[in-house]
């Protein structure tokens, strides 16, 4: 049953992150679908992919976005 929870968090996280106006929040919320997908990989019997995705999807990618936001502008015009 727990897969369904991750499914819902992944989809809702994606929608909610795209709906924010504060771009720093967007960047941080991107980590939620990333981490949920990592858990889904684990339940799909792929622990090594899950490890990679956990690092890339929930840490590196949001940090990239956050850095880009800090170098550009924070609020959507």
């Amino acid at each position, binding site marked *: 049953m727990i897969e369904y929870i991750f499914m819902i968090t992944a989809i809702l996280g994606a929608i909610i992150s795209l709906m924010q106006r504060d771009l720093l929040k967007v960047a941080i919320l991107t980590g939620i679908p990333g981490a949920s*997908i990592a858990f889904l990989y684990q339940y799909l019997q*792929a622990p090594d992919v899950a490890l990679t995705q956990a690092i890339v999807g929930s840490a590196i990618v949001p940090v990239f976005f956050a850095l880009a936001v800090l170098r550009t502008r924070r609020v959507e015009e």
Partner: protein
Amino acid sequence: MIIDTQLAALFTAGALIVIGIFGALFLDNLIKKVIALAFIGDGANLFLVSLGYKAGGIVYIFLPGMAMSNFSQNASYPLPYALVLTSIVIGASTMAVMLGIIIILNKKYGSISASKILGE
């Protein structure tokens, strides 16, 4: 109950691709556009991984002490997983390049709105 995992993964993949395509087409902010593109990539990867899943199977890593016959009958199909590892890294690097271009364009235009920068 067992097939549910694959179904959930496929549904998530489809939803992420749809959200991503909508976001990439209709959002005006460039950083949000790039985030939407990252979602499309995630969805495609998730779809690829869910193909290798075997209901009731075991992880495809052969550890010492496992029975060979049991492993070869129950392990999930490892090829898609190997491909996805490459694909995740490619997606992250493409995204980093796009963000770099956006930072430079912001210096030039003072804005990260797609209609201002890309619209001609």
